């Protein structure tokens, strides 16, 4: 923010004792967070890396195997199956969801809608619904027996609508995720739009710019940081896809394999297969892939912003 004279003042005159006290006080506030953070974030990551280097064998017990587990993962068709599935999910679902969110945020921010408050709150509301309930509701609505899909098929006398068939399943999951998070992303964009000074709009209008020109030249550039954050959160979310397919599995157990997504694969490896070392390896690979892609997005976003 703007540097007020008062905030510059302490810099002007050296005041060492207070500085020392302040540095101690800073850790007093940050310390508790970092302590728990180390316990539930840093320690598991370190332990995970350690686990991925070992293998539990019948003969010889826990043996150091170096990168063998990683080699195994790269040659594992089940791992690749899940990875490619979430990658294609990411490529299709995230753009659709973010465009819906962007259009909604621009529409609500434009002040050209009736009852825009109601729209903002209601469209955001699905975010408050637990993924379990969201997946159960949509899963029921998708199903033939007690769902809307069955009703509609009866109505038009065919069975075109089959959201839970093998070829439509991933799209159906994408719909659930879009429903859950479009409003959340809309709110992030909307919050960023509200920080734009209205002077800019007035100046643009005086220069004869129309709404679309204002969106292209003022609003979208101002939204860039928010869009980058949303893309990164969505990438993380897509690669972690677990809740929705895992719950739909209770409705269509035959269509969703134990390795449907890498996250489900790691979970099933651990808790039904007892292969903790290999599960940790899969999790680490997914963490690295996510971090690298998120980093590239941020880098490219920033570079494009400087141009």
């Amino acid at each position: 923010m703007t540097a007020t004279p008062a905030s510059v003042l302490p810099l002007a005159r050296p005041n060492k004792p207070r500085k020392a006290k302040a540095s101690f006080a800073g850790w007093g506030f940050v310390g508790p967070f970092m302590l728990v953070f180390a316990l539930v974030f840093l320690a598991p990551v370190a332990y995970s890396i350690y686990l991925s280097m070992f293998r539990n064998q019948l003969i010889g017990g826990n043996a150091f195997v170096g990168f063998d587990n990683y080699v195994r993962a790269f040659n594992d068709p089940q791992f690749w199956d899940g990875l490619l599935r979430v990658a294609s999910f990411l490529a299709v679902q995230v753009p659709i969801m973010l465009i819906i969110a962007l259009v909604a945020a621009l529409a609500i921010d434009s002040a050209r809608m009736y009852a825009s408050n109601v729209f903002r709150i209601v469209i955001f509301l699905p975010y408050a619904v637990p993924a379990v309930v969201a997946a159960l509701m949509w899963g029921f609505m998708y199903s033939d027996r007690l769902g809307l899909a069955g009703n509609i098929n009866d109505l038009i006398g065919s069975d075109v609508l089959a959201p839970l068939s093998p070829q439509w399943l991933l799209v159906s999951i994408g719909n659930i995720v879009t429903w859950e998070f479009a409003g959340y992303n809309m709110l992030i964009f909307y919050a960023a739009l509200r920080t734009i000074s209205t002077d800019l709009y007035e100046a643009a209008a005086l220069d004869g710019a129309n709404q679309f020109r204002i969106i292209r030249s003022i609003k979208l550039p101002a939204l860039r940081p928010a869009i980058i954050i949303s893309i990164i959160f969505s990438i993380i979310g897509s690669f972690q896809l677990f809740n929705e397919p895992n719950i739909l599995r209770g409705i269509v157990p035959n269509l969703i394999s134990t390795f449907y997504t890498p996250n489900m694969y790691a979970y099933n490896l651990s808790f039904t297969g007892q292969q903790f070392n290999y599960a940790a390896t899969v999790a680490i690979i997914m963490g690295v892939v996510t971090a690298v892609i998120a980093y590239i997005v941020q880098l490219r976003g920033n570079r494009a912003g400087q141009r």
Partner: protein
Amino acid sequence: MTAVAPRTRALPLQAAATKRRRKYDPTRRSVALTIVMSLLLIYSLLPLFWLVINSTKTQEDLFGTFGLWFGNDFALFDNIGQTLTYNNGIFLRWLGNTVMYVVIGAGGATILATAAGYGLAKYQFPGRRAVFAIVLGAVAVPGTALAVPTFLMFSQVGLTNTPLSVIIPSLISPFGLYLMWVYAADAIPTELLEAARMDGASEARIFFTISMKLLTPGIVTVLLFAVVATWNNYFLPLIMLSDPQWYPLTLGLNQWNLQAIGVGSTPIFNLVITGSLLTIVPIIAIFLVLQRYWQSGLGAGGVKE
């Protein structure tokens, strides 16, 4: 404001001026835009509407009547009664567990994130940049990379299958820390802190008497998002808990749903649906009641770089 209009081009004709103003007047409402956006509104409400309608149906009507309208019998209160008493009232137990996880987990997460975000925003201390880098980097680590090793670590110290195994990981919210950091940097004038120090107030006293008040909208926002995350948590308790006595609502509902495909068990879809409705009513109510807070909290600092 309109007086400066001729700056760009001379517009002597009154008609042209009003035409232009009408075109760019931002307060003009558009019916077409409202209708288009209504489609999104309907999409957002459709599953919730379906849930409300179907929680009034008996299991027979669930299968036999049209999904988006009431069935032959109005069984809402019957369903609620059954949901609350089924299996010796296990649903109420799950509700109690969820409330416990939310109060301790989300409450603790908010306290930790508030203090740490404030500390990062308002104090210079050695290692400050490292803290920031580590926490932001950690956001990219997927939940599973943490969940499996956390489970193994907790099982070695006997924490799995206890409430603590769900509560401890819930105490950390990197997003909350980030939000609080940005919010505190904006909301608290440094000169105010300086003045308080001049008067001899301790750092703790300054935090509790001055800063907390200024941070309130940010704190409510962080609390709300932490409450939603904990209330809706599924993956973590799924891994940590094996005893249904400690389940939160989300895990319990899925267990009820799985009864339908279990061998020799009876489906209880009406209870799954009514239970789902009862699960989301409190969280949606909290959101609507606190909307003034979270909207200003997010608006002030949610996504600034």
